[in-house]
C-alpha cells in the first residue's frame, strides 16, 4: 500500500515549509513569558477554535475511533454530540469565560498554575505539573505512533526513523516558537483537516448512493454481525448495543462519557481559554469550533460505520474482516480502496496535520508543566529564573520519553492510551477546576483532597479492577494472584465513572468541613 508518488513528496514538502514559516513567525513574535506560554493573550477567534479543535482531534480520533465505528456502528455518534455540546459550547462559554478571567486576575500562564494560584497552593501546582509530566507522554506516545505509522505506510520511511523524524520536526517549532507557533500551525493543520474530512464525507455518501440509501443498506446488514460480537451485545451498525452488555459499557462509560467529559479537564485545551483577550472572542470561536468537531469526529464515525456497506458491495465482507480483524486498519483500508488517488494523498496530509497539531500542544503543555509548574513554582518556590530555557529543556526531556514510549508500547495501544489519559485528567482535575471557577466556598483543603483522591482512585481502578488495563499491567496478578479484584460488569466500567464522582464528593465534604479561604483572595480570583 505504499503511495510513493512525487506528488505526495512535493505536497509534504510544501506543507512542511509552511509549518516552519509559521514556527518562525512564532519565534519572531515571542518576546516574553506571556508570549511563550500564552501567545500574548490576544489570539483571534478562528485561530482559537481551529487550534483547540486540531489539538483535541488527533489521528487517534480519526483512525482509532473511526475504526471503532466501523466495527461497532453509529452509537459512537453520541460522543460527537457530547463533544460539540460539552466539549465546545459549554467548555467555551461556561468554563472558558471564567477560566480566562481568573487566569488574567491571577496572572496564571499554565493550567496547573491557574489552579495552584486559585487555592494558593504550590503543592497543587507542583503535583498537577508532575501528573501531566508523568502521564501525558503516554498520550503523546500514542499520537506519535499514529503519525509515524502513517509516514511508514505513505512515505515508505522505516518506522523507527519516522518516530524520530516526526518528534524532531514538531519539537523544532514548539521549542523555538512557543505557543504562538503551536497555535498558528494548529490553525493551518485544522484548516487542512476540515477540508480533507469534508471531501471524505461528500465522496462517501455519493459513492453509496445518497444518505438514506447508504443508511438503509447499513441497517439491512444487521444479521451479518459476527456471532462472537453479537454474543457480547453488538446488535448492528445502526442500533445501540444491548443495554448492560460489555459492548454497551465500553461504548457508554469509556468512550462516550470518558472522552466526552474528560475533554473539559484537559490541561492542553483549557490553557487555550487564557490566550484570548475577552469573552467575546470565546463566543465568536464557538461559531467555527462546533462545525469543526462535527467535520472531524462526526464524519470519521459516520464514514467508519458506512465503510461496511462499501466493503459488502465490493468484496462481500464486513469492514472488520476487510481490515484483517484490526480495528485500527479499517479507516486506512477504506480510504485506500474507495477514494480516488489524489484524495488519498491529500488525506494523508490531513492525518499528518492531525498528529502534528496534537503533538505540538502536548509537548508545549508537558514542557511548561516541567519547567514552570514543577521546577520553578514547586522546587524553586517561585524563584525567578530563566523559565523559558528550563521549559525548553523540559519539552526536550518529555519528547525523549514520548519517543521511547512510542518504541516500547505494544501495537493497538493508541485509543486506550488516549482514553486512560482523558479519564485520569477528569478524575484528578475536573472537581478542583470546576469548584475553583464556579464555587467560592471551595478551598485549598477540598481541592488538595479531591486531587489526591481522584488521582489515586483512578490509578487504583486501572491497576486492580479495569479488565483490559489491569490484566495487561499484571500488577494485580503479581500481588493478589488474580487479574482483577472485582469481577463481572465492574471490569468493563471505566475508572472515570467511579473516581470522578468520588473526587467531587470528597471536594465538597472536605471544603465544607474546613475553613474557607480568605475572602480578599477569593474576591481577587473572581473579580470581573
Amino acid at each position, binding site marked *: 500500500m505504499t503511495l510513493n508518488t512525487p506528488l505526495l513528496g512535493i505536497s509534504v514538502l510544501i506543507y512542511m515549509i509552511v509549518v516552519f514559516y509559521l514556527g518562525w513567525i512564532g519565534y519572531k513574535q515571542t518576546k516574553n513569558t506571556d508570549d511563550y506560554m500564552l501567545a500574548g493573550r490576544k489570539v483571534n477567534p478562528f485561530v482559537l477554535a481551529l487550534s483547540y479543535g486540531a489539538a483535541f482531534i488527533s489521528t487517534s480520533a480519526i483512525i482509532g475511533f473511526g475504526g471503532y465505528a466501523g466495527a461497532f*456502528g*453509529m*452509537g459512537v*455518534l*453520541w460522543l*460527537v*454530540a457530547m463533544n*460539540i*455540546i460539552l466539549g*465546545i*459550547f459549554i467548555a467555551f*462559554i461556561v468554563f472558558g469565560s471564567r477560566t480566562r478571567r481568573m487566569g488574567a486576575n491571577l496572572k496564571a500562564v499554565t493550567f496547573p498554575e491557574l489552579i495552584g494560584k486559585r487555592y494558593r497552593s504550590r503543592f497543587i501546582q507542583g503535583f498537577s505539573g508532575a501528573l501531566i509530566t508523568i502521564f501525558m507522554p503516554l498520550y503523546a506516545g500514542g499520537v506519535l505512533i499514529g503519525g509515524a505509522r502513517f509516514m511508514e505506510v505513505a512515505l515508505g520511511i522505516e518506522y523507527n526513523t519516522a518516530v524520530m523524524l516526526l518528534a524532531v520536526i514538531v519539537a523544532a517549532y514548539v521549542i523555538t516558537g512557543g505557543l504562538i507557533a503551536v497555535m498558528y500551525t494548529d490553525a493551518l493543520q485544522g484548516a487542512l483537516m476540515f477540508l480533507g474530512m469534508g471531501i471524505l464525507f461528500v465522496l462517501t455518501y455519493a459513492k453509496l448512493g445518497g*444518505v*438514506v*440509501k*447508504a*443508511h*438503509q*443498506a*447499513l*441497517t439491512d446488514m444487521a444479521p451479518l454481525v459476527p456471532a462472537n460480537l453479537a454474543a457480547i451485545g453488538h446488535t448492528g451498525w*445502526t*442500533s*445501540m448495543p444491548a443495554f448492560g452488555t460489555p459492548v454497551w459499557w465500553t461504548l457508554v462509560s469509556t468512550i462516550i462519557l470518558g472522552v466526552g467529559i474528560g475533554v473539559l479537564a484537559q490541561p492542553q485545551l483549557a490553557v487555550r481559554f487564557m490566550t484570548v483577550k*475577552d*469573552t*467575546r472572542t470565546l*463566543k*465568536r*470561536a*464557538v*461559531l*467555527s*469550533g*462546533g*462545525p469543526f*468537531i*462535527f467535520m472531524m469526529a*462526526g464524519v470519521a464515525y*459516520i464514514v467508519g460505520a458506512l465503510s461496511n456497506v462499501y466493503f459488502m458491495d465490493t468484496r462481500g465482507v464486513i469492514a472488520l474482516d476487510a481490515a484483517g480483524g484490526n480495528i485500527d486498519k479499517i479507516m486506512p483500508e477504506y480510504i485506500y480502496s474507495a477514494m480516488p488517488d489524489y484524495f488519498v494523498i491529500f488525506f494523508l496530509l490531513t492525518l499528518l496535520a492531525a498528529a502534528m497539531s496534537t503533538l505540538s500542544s502536548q509537548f508545549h503543555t508537558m514542557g511548561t508543566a516541567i519547567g514552570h509548574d514543577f521546577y520553578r513554582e514547586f522546587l524553586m518556590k517561585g524563584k525567578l529564573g530563566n523559565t523559558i530555557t528550563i521549559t525548553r529543556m523540559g519539552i526536550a526531556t518529555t519528547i525523549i520519553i514520548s519517543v521511547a514510549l512510542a518504541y516500547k508500547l505494544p501495537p493497538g495501544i493508541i485509543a486506550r492510551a488516549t482514553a486512560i489519559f482523558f479519564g485520569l485528567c477528569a478524575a484528578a482535575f475536573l472537581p478542583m477546576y470546576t469548584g475553583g471557577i464556579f464555587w467560592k466556598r471551595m478551598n485549598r483543603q477540598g481541592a488538595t483532597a479531591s486531587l489526591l483522591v481522584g488521582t489515586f482512585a483512578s490509578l487504583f481502578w486501572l491497576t486492580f479492577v479495569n479488565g483490559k488495563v489491569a490484566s495487561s499491567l499484571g500488577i494485580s496478578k503479581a500481588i493478589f494472584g488474580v487479574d482483577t479484584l472485582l469481577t463481572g460488569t465492574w471490569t468493563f466500567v471505566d475508572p472515570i465513572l467511579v473516581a470522578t464522582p468520588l473526587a467531587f464528593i470528597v471536594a465538597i465534604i472536605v471544603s465544607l468541613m474546613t475553613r474557607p479561604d480568605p475572602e480578599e483572595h477569593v474576591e481577587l480570583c*473572581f*473579580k*470581573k
Partner: protein
Amino acid sequence: MLGINDPQIWIAYLLCFVSAIGCIIYGLIHWNDVEEIGDAN
C-alpha cells in the same frame, strides 16, 4: 428515519447536525457582543 430504525441512533445523528448549526447561530448572534464591566459575580 433517514434509513436508521433505532431512535437512539438517529437522534444522535440529528443532534450532531443540530448542535453544530446551533454553534454557528450562537456565534453569529454574539459576534458583536460588548463586554459587560463591573457586574459583580
